[in-house]
């Protein structure tokens, strides 16, 4: 089967890249791949500090969660003769990538089943049964596995693959309507990376309404036109109803897991300033943008330039920017919670304080879950060329600035801005395409009845 062949091939490629030219491109120190939050080198440093009975957060080296430290830390110190250092961590990342791809595939299948059920109830079954209707889950899994961003992130020793895995675990749990799993994924991923906390909205929609479907209004209209048929009415009225039970369960589980995590973390850092210190060194570090070393985001440059007394104002502006967009999008896209999750992840990866290409890898994978819906997306080629161009230009500009000294920070920041623009265009166009797709379905409904 094509899927498995290519999946194994991608894993083999990763293993070769990990084993063979270890510091060929110095991947682990590229600013595009490892941020202060996701760098494995920093994690190893934090673990070393912890082992020598110091606070792992001493000296502003490590800023991640204690959970990652206790899981990955022991693996960083194990050396195997003849193999590159930190091989075990790299293997963990490869496994995480594989698991993520499988979760994407499962979500894709789930979406397809839900979609065909909904379409059948709208008498549009032939759309889904059409042989041209692509197996979105398989495509998305392969896109995720073969995306150069994913491959380089995986090989470049950054903890992004694990964060991505946790986020997809949340979505998978919500899609399958398993509140404990969704709650577990959501709590851990928010704890590790903070930004996935906004995914609570799509998760609640997923648990309440079920996976993506055409707008609910259509079913109501359908029911109105076919009031005579009682059986159909019952069948199609059922999914529109919001299941409070699973949402309540989710909240319950989430609070249990959250208290567990806080308790364990508190235990772990008890001797080094306690939970307060941990929150300050992890979430505080993310929210106040303390580290201004260059990355592919736009915040470092801005906060390097801004006057100190405006700093807090702009910090609030930038973070509220993400929050402002949550509500309108949630209202407009409430019938497509998985797509909503994609939009949220994409927006947060544009505006987050320490972005890396690992975040892009995640949302590009999620985006390809909707290949059928996005078939009419505009500017696809333009966006593709833009992504290719920026991802090649960015290392060159970095080289020009840091190593050659003939460029300056503006050169590198220009590529970061271009990258942000392309991401924004991508989000706008994909949302546009989805809304157009919904309109098209409505039109089909009215013409077929």
């Amino acid at each position, binding site marked *: 089967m094509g899927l498995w062949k290519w999946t194994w091939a991608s894993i083999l490629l990763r293993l070769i890249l990990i084993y063979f030219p270890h510091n*060929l491109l110095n991947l682990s120190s590229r600013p595009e791949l490892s941020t202060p939050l996701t760098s494995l080198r920093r994690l190893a440093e934090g673990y070393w500090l912890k082992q020598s009975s110091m606070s792992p957060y001493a000296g502003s080296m490590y800023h991640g969660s204690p959970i990652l430290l206790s899981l990955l830390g022991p693996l960083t110190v194990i050396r195997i003769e003849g193999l590159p250092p930190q091989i075990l961590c790299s293997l963990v990342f490869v496994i995480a990538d594989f698991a993520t791809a499988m979760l994407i595939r499962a979500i894709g299948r789930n979406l397809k089943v839900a979609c065909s059920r909904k379409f059948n109830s709208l008498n549009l079954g032939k*759309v889904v049964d059409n042989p041209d209707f692509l197996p979105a889950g398989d495509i998305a899994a392969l896109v995720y596995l073969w995306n150069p961003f994913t491959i380089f992130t995986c090989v470049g020793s950054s903890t992004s693959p694990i964060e991505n895995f946790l986020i997809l675990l949340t979505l998978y749990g919500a899609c399958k309507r398993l509140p404990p799993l969704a709650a577990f994924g959501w709590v851990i991923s928010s704890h590790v990376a903070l930004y996935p906390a906004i995914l609570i909205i799509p998760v609640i929609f997923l648990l309440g309404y079920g996976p993506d479907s055409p707008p609910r209004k259509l079913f109501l209209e359908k029911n109105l036109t076919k009031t005579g048929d009682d059986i159909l009415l019952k069948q199609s009225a059922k999914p529109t109803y919001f299941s409070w039970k699973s949402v309540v369960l989710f909240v319950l589980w989430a609070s249990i897991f959250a208290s567990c995590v806080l308790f364990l973390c508190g235990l772990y850092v008890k001797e080094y300033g306690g939970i307060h210190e941990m929150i300050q060194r992890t979430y505080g570090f993310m929210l106040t943008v303390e580290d201004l070393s260059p990355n592919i985001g736009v915040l470092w440059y801005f906060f390097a330039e801004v006057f100190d007394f405006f700093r807090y104002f702009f910090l609030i502006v930038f973070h509220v920017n993400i929050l402002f967009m949550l509500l309108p999008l949630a209202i407009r896209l409430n019938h497509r919670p998985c797509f909503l999750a994609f939009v949220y992840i994409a927006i947060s990866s544009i505006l987050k304080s320490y972005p890396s290409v690992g975040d892009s890898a995640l949302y590009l994978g999620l985006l390809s879950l909707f*290949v*059928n819906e996005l078939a009419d*997306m*505009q500017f*696809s080629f333009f966006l*593709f060329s833009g992504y290719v161009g920026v991802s*090649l230009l960015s290392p060159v500009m970095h080289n020009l600035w840091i190593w050659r000294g003939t460029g300056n920070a503006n050169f590198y920041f220009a590529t970061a801005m271009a990258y942000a623009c392309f991401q924004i265009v991508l989000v706008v166009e994909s949302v546009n395409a989805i809304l*157009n797709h919904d309109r098209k379905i409505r039109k089909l409904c009215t013409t077929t009845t």
Partner: protein
Amino acid sequence: MAETIAPEVKPRPIIRIGLFIISHSTLVSIVCCIAGVLALLLLPVLAKSTYFSENALMPGSAMSMLSGKNVVEADRFVKELSSLGLKAPSTGLEIPKLIAKGMADLGGEVSYHNFHPQSKKFHPLHFFSSPDPDMVKANYSCSSYGVNIIGIARAPRSDGKEAIVLVTPYNSSDISLGEAMSLGIAYSVFSLFTQVSWLAKDIIWVAADSRHGEYASIVSWLRDYHSPSFGGLEKLNAKACREGLVTGSEVSDSFLRGGTIAAALVIKVADKSEVFDKDALSIYAEASNGQMPNLDLINVINYLAVHGQGFRVKVEKLPSLLDSKWLKVLGTAIESLGKIARNLNPQWKFGIPVADYVEGTATLASSLYNQALGVPTGPHGAFRDYQIDAVTLDILPKISSYHKARRNEFLLHGARLVEGVARSVNNLLEKFHQSFFLYLLTSPNKFVSVGVYMIAFLLLIAPLPVVAASLYSDAHKCNSGIKNEDVTSADFVDGPTINSKSWRWLYAAKTVFVIHLWGFIVTVLPFFVCQIPNCSSTTSLLIWIASSGFSLILVHLLLGSPFVTASIPQSAGKEWLLLKSVTITAAFIGLCLMSVINFATAEIGALLTVPMCLMARPLKRDFNVRSTKAYARGALNLVLLHIGFPMAAFFLIKGAFEGFDNISVGDFWYWVESLWVWNSATYIYICMAYIPCWVLCIHILLHPC
């Protein structure tokens, strides 16, 4: 639906302008290409005179303190050196000993630096990684070591955080008169620097052993200077070899360092001399990948050499351009244009004399060529890798300079120039940053800055995205026409097929991607070809070409067949439009990237790529039309493709500049070899961006529509 609503809404003006340009893409591309070439030819006219950006330099503001006494001492030193050089076979240690003794006598700190030159290796991906610190360490015999002698004049009033480097290459086993003279110049300057009180930066005099090449010795010295050294095997070996060298307590045992190097001068004196009324000074500045030192450094040297010491300063020119007819015609046209402009308005200072124009063009061409090669033009190139501004000063004495009386005068002028430059750099408060790093020289005191030469390049590549967009929309348009017919027959609007919608370019993108992947294989192949022992250059080249062709077939078999279009469904007649669009986009991205890395390569690459890409069109279509225009276009396409083959282009350029007399096929291999041993990005550009583009153009030409 969006498509039906769209025409009613009037798009915004900027989008309308974009659409207008795209719909007139042919005209736009012709105008832009011609304007780009014209702008390139106009660059010598647009060149500005150089000026000092950094006020702290204050060149020539202080009286030279170098006196006759210093020069007489230096003269004696030169005599000693040349008498040693004339002697019969030496052990290779007398000359270093003598130089070290000279340095120590002047009051400098002296140490030897033994090194083993690293053989250059093939690193296709070296460009993006930082310099590799770990090198292969092995047991070497003593004779293979080179000996650099390092003398440091400590600045009396500084904390030793900054330094200026003077480099004089010499051959430790057989010293020539020119080398002795350059050592003499450095000796007299050094004798002054050990005495003066105004020094704020340490002066490091490196007498670099050029037995293994000037470049290699400086590279190894710089590497040791910038990396912490721990006594390894090599050091022990070196110590054993140094036994014969130690002359006394004045030679330090450890590796001596100053601070951060602010600037470096490489001083060379030519052995031959020329009949001129002045000594000539050639400035070489190009480092690896077309990097240049800060323009201020060249300004200082030029200013002091011309106004202070009466040198005739030159930068390299392409001699064959100096007496080319068409350049003269062009120059005359520009001169007369300038005259007309001045008649209209005396304020307009446009146009330069014919002779200036021709000279400027020849210099500019050589500047472009040297930068495009990406190979350093002298030992100064090693410094640029550590972000140090450096130039090579090649002094060509006039005929009488080697006579005894003239020698003192020559030494005095050379030493005063070096003293003046060092004194200016000494005034700097921070490293060179005020003036340009990205520029082309048209004469020693005229330059074209990045803001001007970029215009020529941008005009040249501007048609690429426009044509790509127009081809893309063409392919889309005819596709949507077919689509509409489908709709009526299938009475079904929502057939979400990827083949027929906006993602159809993915097939073309796959083809382009596979070819670029093959380009990567072509890049790496010479690494394996080099391993074959006893291979002449011609055979290596043929093996390279053959294996490239073979790998193309292999890639095509393994990763889906880019050359078979049967698998691509529907509207096959227009498939080439998308393919050409994607090809052009890839070429555009490649050129943009290269223009950041190395402008000159991108400019020359654009001159070859842009017409080739824009013209490409299936031959079958042209021959089916059977009109003169179509035939002419087909013929032009074929010609462009033949010129575009890298080897053909290389031989044409070589032949145009050096004549077709002594050209052999193997030359191309040597040229490519020189590119990769110097880690030139040009090599990567040719193999990974240019050749794939060329192959794709062939593919489009042979496309079965």
